[in-house]
């Protein structure tokens, strides 16, 4: 079910451009640690894509996530959103581009910053937003990039409910589905999953997207922007791996109330 395990014939080695050279420090594993999942060959390389990863206190997992993404040769832009743990150093030593927020501004703000930074990188044509806690799969992102190119839409959104959900409670699934209903009713865009952090989009979206919501409501806001700016969009099934870590890091279900409140307030105040 993943489109990832494909190797296109005639793959070339990454061009060693000035902007990318010298930053691949992870090529030599630190501390002699073995990399169990190293199967460098089965990910196609997408060198015109930038993965934007908002990071807030993810020091324990961010290194692995960065290495996982880097295997496909994409730019990795990590926005450290005022982390108080070792995220800053982890990002640097894993070899990703690091953008440091001087204060904590929330995930939506971090996404916006990351997108604006990625726009400055030479040769970037496609953008992916990716969660730092390891719940997304790089293969899914690659599949979405394929869909983006083949279909010619502006933005491709990942959907848990077209794909698989591993390890989510019935309660969590119910709340998420209610969120979808709410979003469909308020945003004017019909989706099966309103709050998925995995998205792929083209330059046009990257240039015109302006996320103002700083906190978790940015997911609903992005959907509203899709509707307002008239982006064409598609949903693609993705697999979310809910681990104990990602659930403990993720938003509490009660936060759905905040999201609903802020969405309605945005409606009346604009």
């Amino acid at each position, binding site marked *: 079910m993943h489109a990832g395990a494909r190797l296109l014939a005639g793959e070339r080695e990454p061009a060693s451009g*000035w*902007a990318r050279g010298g930053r691949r420090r992870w090529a030599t594993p630190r501390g002699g640690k073995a990399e169990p999942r190293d199967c460098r060959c089965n990910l196609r390389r997408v060198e015109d894509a930038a993965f934007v990863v908002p990071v807030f206190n993810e020091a324990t997992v961010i290194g692995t996530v960065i290495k996982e993404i880097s295997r496909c040769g994409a730019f990795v832009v990590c926005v450290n959103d005022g982390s108080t743990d070792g995220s800053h150093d982890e990002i640097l030593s894993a070899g990703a581009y690091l953008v440091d927020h*001087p204060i904590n501004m929330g995930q939506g703000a971090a996404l916006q*910053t990351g997108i604006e*930074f990625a726009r400055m990188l030479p040769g970037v044509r496609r953008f992916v937003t990716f969660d730092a806690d390891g719940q997304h799969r790089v293969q899914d992102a690659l599949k979405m990039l394929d869909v983006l190119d083949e279909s010619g839409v502006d933005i491709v959104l990942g959907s848990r409910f077209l794909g698989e959900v591993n390890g989510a409670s019935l309660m969590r699934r119910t709340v998420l589905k209610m969120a979808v209903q709410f979003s469909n009713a308020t945003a004017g865009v019909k989706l099966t999953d309103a709050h998925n952090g995995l998205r792929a989009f083209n330059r046009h979206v990257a240039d015109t997207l302006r996320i103002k919501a700083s906190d978790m409501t940015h997911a609903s806001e992005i959907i509203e922007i899709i509707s307002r700016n008239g982006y064409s969009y598609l949903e693609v099934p993705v697999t979310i791996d809910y681990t104990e870590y990602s659930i403990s890091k993720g938003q509490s279900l009660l936060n759905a109330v905040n999201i609903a409140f802020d969405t309605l307030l945005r409606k009346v105040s604009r």
Partner: protein
Amino acid sequence: MIFVQLILIAAVTAMAVLGLRSRATHGVNAWKKLLFAALLVVVVIAVLFPAMVNRTANWVGVGRGTDLVLYVLAMAFGFYVVNEYLRGQDAREELHRLARRIALVEAADRYGLVNALPAPLERSEQPADEHEDRTAS
């Protein structure tokens, strides 16, 4: 004149001095100031002639003047809260724009991308007119 009237009028005078002292002369602020001055006049009249408040209350169908004052105060407070909330959001947006710029400049410097930095404000991002004359409020 009873003592409480003295205190109230002194407070209103202080409010007037503080509120109207700002030098900004934009249109929006001028109207705000006129409204504010009118409010102060009403307050002074209400303090000096409490009976008028009672009569007004009866006229609009409220029992006592005190009740009318309470209702007006509750509504004014509601508006104040909403206004402050929206203003807080605006202020947060500005702060975030500033912090984002710092983050981008710093990162661009680290990776030799300074020449790729866009102008700090794009046309569609410029603050709307109403945001430009916040100095008086």
